[in-house]
């Protein structure tokens, strides 16, 4: 059940109506819990069972952590939780990756191994909910938050359907307190959330899904297309992945918001970033802050004495972030290149400090270099193998003229148009202006934009890219 499917609209209409008709907070939480498990079970009921077992175990570890002051026992509980979540993640997501990599390595040494024939179905959103659970037990261990005493509350936190399958990754310190009181929302909130849902729907269905056939064609047959088409395809993929994922996040935030729950901002115009570091402050914010807090900081974070230690921690963090995205070496390389880019940028900033007078043009140059660097990295992210990636990167720099097939050249304008559109929307504070409209004008505009959105549907629902992660 995808957010853009009619089935979800029906599901959410029933959920929303029932939810607001319930009087007590407990009844509402019970209902959301049931709805969340129904939502997740609609993919495969076995996933729901697994989620329940994992969540219950994490709640138990958290509860036990709060019951004891013994450091050794506390360490055992937190290690158990981390080991359990990472083992589940490793098995479902990385089993084939690790076995095929081991076999390939063994082949180098002329040792021939065969891959075990094990069919593993990847549970939807496993990377999201395992990271969410990990943050809970680690935070309780670090005494940053109290343990959740009520199992029902914890189960609701870990399965909250708006963000369950593709984030944003919600921290318990942010979400659990919201569950303590009965939610209410204002009319302005409703307007803002409806606006956000429609914006997300347009990003996903009208933009990402309409351009994905072009991207798929070029990446499936890279040899056939000429250099300019390959370059456009790389730009289009940058648009596609942003609109797909941020569109999902917008809809998730809106769906939660319509039930009175607030989720964290996950994207903040990442393609307007003026450096790689700035890009990671704006892209998939809930994941970047997660890996910063639980990997980078755990490794020691920024070293005041040794720069190389900082860079080592950064590289490990980014490589792990790359691997989180998918079980393939191309993803690891993608993370590594982003880490390397940040290291180079940090060194450059040390060598050539910014003067006040240089700020505007350095920002412009920084933006240009960053967006092209990010697009090149997306090639690595999207390519099925390093060969395809190398070919596409050569085409990006026009080092290879390529084949004869083309995709429409006007698509090259899509990126600048959307970027300018985003700038304009931020400049005029479109969301605030929409909320300020009177109810009748808001209603008219909302209906009119939906008419456009439906006319722009690509016909054929494509799953959200980040579901696979």
């Amino acid at each position: 059940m995808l957010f853009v499917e009619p089935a979800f609209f029906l599901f959410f209409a029933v959920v929303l109506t029932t939810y607001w008709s319930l009087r007590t907070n407990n009844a509402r939480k019970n209902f959301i819990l049931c709805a969340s498990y129904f939502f997740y079970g609609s993919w495969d009921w076995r996933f729901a069972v697994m989620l329940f077992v994992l969540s219950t175990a994490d709640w138990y570890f958290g509860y036990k952590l709060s019951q004891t002051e013994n450091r050794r026992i506390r360490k055992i509980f937190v290690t158990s939780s981390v080991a359990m979540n990472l083992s589940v993640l490793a098995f479902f997501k990385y089993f084939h990756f690790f076995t095929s990599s081991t076999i390939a390595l063994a082949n180098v040494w002329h040792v021939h191994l065969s891959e075990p024939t094990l069919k593993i179905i990847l549970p939807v959103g496993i990377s999201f909910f395992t990271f969410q659970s990990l943050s809970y037990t680690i935070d309780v261990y670090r005494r940053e938050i109290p343990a959740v005493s009520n199992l029902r509350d914890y189960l609701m936190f870990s399965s909250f359907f708006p963000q369950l399958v593709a984030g944003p990754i919600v921290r318990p310190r942010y979400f659990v307190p919201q569950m303590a009181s009965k939610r209410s929302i204002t009319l302005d909130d409703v307007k803002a959330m409806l606006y956000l849902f429609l914006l997300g729907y347009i990003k996903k269905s009208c933009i990402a899904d309409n351009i994905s056939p072009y991207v798929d064609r070029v990446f499936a047959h890279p040899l056939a297309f000429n250099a300019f088409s390959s370059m456009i395809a790389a730009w289009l993929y940058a648009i596609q992945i942003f609109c797909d994922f941020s569109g999902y996040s917008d809809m998730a935030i809106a769906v939660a918001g319509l039930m009175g729950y607030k989720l964290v901002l996950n994207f903040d115009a990442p393609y307007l970033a003026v450096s790689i570091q700035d890009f990671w402050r704006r892209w998939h914010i809930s994941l970047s802050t997660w890996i910063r807090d639980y990997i980078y900081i755990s490794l020691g974070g920024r070293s005041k004495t040794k720069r190389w230690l900082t860079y080592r921690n950064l590289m490990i963090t980014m490589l792990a972030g790359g691997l989180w995205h998918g079980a393939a070496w191309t993803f690891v390389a993608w993370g590594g290149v982003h880490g390397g880019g940040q290291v180079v940028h940090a060194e450059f900033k040390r060598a050539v400090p910014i003067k006040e007078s240089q700020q505007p043009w350095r920002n412009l140059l920084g933006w240009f270099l960053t967006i092209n660097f990010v697009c090149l990295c997306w090639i690595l992210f999207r390519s099925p193998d390093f060969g395809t990636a190398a070919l596409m990167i050569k085409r990006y720099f026009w080092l290879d003229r390529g084949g004869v097939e083309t995709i429409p050249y006007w698509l090259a304008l899509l990126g600048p148009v959307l970027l300018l559109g985003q700038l304009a929307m931020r400049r005029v504070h479109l969301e605030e202006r929409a909320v300020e409209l009177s109810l009748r004008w808001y209603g008219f505009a909302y209906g009119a934009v939906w008419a456009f959105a439906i006319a722009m549907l690509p016909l054929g629902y494509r799953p959200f890219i980040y579901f696979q992660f």
Partner: protein
Amino acid sequence: MAGPGEEPGTEAFLPHIRPKMSAVVFAIAIAIFGFVVTAALIHLFIRHPFYLHADTRSEKLVLLDSWKGKAYSASFGSSHVHNGFDPRIFDSELNGTPLQTQSINLAVAGGSQVEQRLMALEFLHDLQPPTRIVGAVPQSCMVLLELSAGANMGTDHMVHPRTINIYDMASVRFIHSLTMPSMPRKQRWGRIGFAFAAAAEHYMNVGMLSASIFNMPIDGDAYRDETIDDRRGYQVLPAETSRMNTVFGRESRRGLYSTAELLPGNYGLIDELMHATPVTGVNFVYLVMPNVEDLDHYEIYPDTIVVDGQNVPIIDLARPDLNPELYQGKYWHDPAHLNEAGADLIMKLTADRLKTFYAHHPLTACGG
């Protein structure tokens, strides 16, 4: 909702504006009004939705375009015709007779009465009679329609451009004419319900604007498959003799039959097509395509119907009692589709029946 610095669960989450229910209802009504007005405006801007990209139909429209002024006859319908009507055999069988023609296959796999109506209208719109072409030999013009095609597209095409782009009010009226009070209620209302749902999508322009902007290319492989060796839209299916022999071996052969009931729309379609073209002397033919299930039960159609004074032959190929030779494994690809040898055989049968029919009925030269 609480701002970033505010603690969730405090007053910031409490409502400070409670709209009246009447205001909310009014806003919803206004939203619907805004939707309808905008959808109507967008609809005005979308010209020729029939030509918007729509899967396998698009390839047939490209074919039609490339044969403008060169094809005088065409077959329409579903996959039964798409995989069963070979224009090369058909033309060669009629060559040297008053029926000689140059034909193309404009049937689309998964097609329906609604789709073949529009394809036929498009064909007739562009038809140029051979008498107007200098140096051309006299040819007959024929429109061969599949009488046994489904009325609507399949339910799997409910949210599909092939359906959405063509279900306007004229299509809904046509579907209504393909129902009768004597029909089972479920079938009748199912047909009408599908048509209305598809028309709602059509007037909501579902996907039509994106199809206008992101105009997808046609499937080059499919088009090549339909045009190599001068196939002119006919798609060859391979023989599956051993598998089909098994099917024929286990198929029950009850041999039941009943009298087919023609619907007002079957007459209405011919009448509409007759009046849609300025070209005179176009002959209309109905085809009933065969199926393995015919061995179990088949319908008996009249040999001809008369529409607006013109005789329209019904070439019934789904008669195991008349064409027992057709029901052998070597002619079939699967229980619903013929292979190349099967198509060859039914083309000969069709040509023979047409020659016989027009030997006893008047045939006017196309454009004459």
